[in-house]
């Protein structure tokens, strides 16, 4: 394990925080969408856990994470330590890993120009915040859509950043930066969410066709979603993955794990539960 310092913490809620780690020897090279294993001491041992990186590979100042402190049925050991940690505390980390990374080429070697649709449930948004910043910083011209599902409005952790990226897309023009962001709140009836006027329901409902035969996603992008024009990246609880696949399987989309003989696929996912 390498050494680093926790240089920034921000609690968005009691159980949701943004953490930045500055490695002693500089931010390691990684691909957008990968995770980093962090470690903190507990009772003379080091407790490790992997967290998806939310910052972009181009950011060489720090590595950022958005982390939920799940406490039921039991509080996670490392996450509990992180939520008690102070800026300036030392932390260890292991090299970045993970396969939920952006495809730049197709199996036949051609450039992958398909629309990128990212679906993140809760803190499953993190790899896609990294995607968005990376694709922005590298002037990628592909169309990018980020869909974020949460139970409560105060869980929309990167709403401002992603809204700013969409506003930039509108002002610059889609030919320069083509980005859209939408969120869905699954508990719209709750008092905290009383002022929410965005999409209501589970995030995968963006894929469900309405009476007009189009899904909200298709209405957003202005064309039919097919396996030839779109690749999906999904991160969240297994229930979110399953919900997304229920819609996509019906359209003959296949996952990377079940790719066709020619190596083609249209869905990459990572679940954390």
């Amino acid at each position, binding site marked *: 394990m390498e050494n680093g310092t926790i240089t920034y913490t921000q609690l968005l809620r009691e159980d949701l925080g943004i953490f930045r780690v500055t490695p002693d020897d500089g931010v390691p090279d990684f691909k957008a969408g990968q995770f980093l294993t962090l470690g903190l001491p507990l009772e003379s041992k080091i407790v490790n856990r992997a967290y998806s990186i939310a910052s972009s590979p181009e950011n060489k100042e720090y590595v950022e994470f958005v982390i939920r402190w799940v*406490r*039921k*049925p039991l*509080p996670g050991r490392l996450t509990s330590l992180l939520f008690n940690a102070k800026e300036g505390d030392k932390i260890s980390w292991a090299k970045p890993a993970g396969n939920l990374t952006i495809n730049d080429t197709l199996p036949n070697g051609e450039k992958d120009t398909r629309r990128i649709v990212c679906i993140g449930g809760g803190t499953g948004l993190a790899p896609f915040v990294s995607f968005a910043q990376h694709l922005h910083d590298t002037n990628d011209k592909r169309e990018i859509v980020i869909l974020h599902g949460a139970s409560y409005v105060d869980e929309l952790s990167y709403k401002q950043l992603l809204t700013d990226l969409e506003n930039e897309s509108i002002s610059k023009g889609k030919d320069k930066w083509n980005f859209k962001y939408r969120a869905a709140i699954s*508990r719209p*009836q709750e*008092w*905290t969410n*009383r002022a929410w006027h965005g999409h209501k329901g589970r995030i995968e409902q963006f894929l469900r066709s309405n009476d007009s035969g189009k899904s909200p996603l298709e209405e957003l992008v202005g064309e039919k979603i097919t396996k030839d024009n779109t690749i999906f990246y999904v991160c969240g609880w297994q229930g979110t993955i399953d919900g997304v696949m229920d819609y996509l399987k019906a359209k003959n989309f296949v996952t990377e794990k079940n790719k066709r003989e020619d190596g083609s696929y249209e869905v990459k996912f990572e679940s954390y539960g």
Partner: protein
Amino acid sequence: MAEEIVQQPNYEQLCLDILNSDKNIRFAGFVNDKSKILHSVQRNDLDSLLTENEIGMSIHYTLERWRKAQNFTFRLGKERLTLTEYDNVTLFTIPFKGKLLLVSTEPRIHYDPIIQKVNSVLTDWAK
């Protein structure tokens, strides 16, 4: 994953049984963990102390407290009762079959006997 199926009671009748168990009870209602009021009853001769929006806020605060209390379940066991005394009303909540019972009573009364009566009703319904 198999999900535990819990037989749900007739909340309309259960709320009435609770309301009728003691004349000092002003209100009885059940909410689920998504803030949905399953059913509630209030004494006919009483005006609500809160506006509709404030009732929503009150339920939100109650559920937030309930959810957070569950973070200690692994050490302290299941929550059985929470009680808040205001100047104008006494409120208590009791988890029941995965839902939360909300009860308000007249202020500054001996609430122990009322809680016992309510628990007795719940015990009968749990059979």
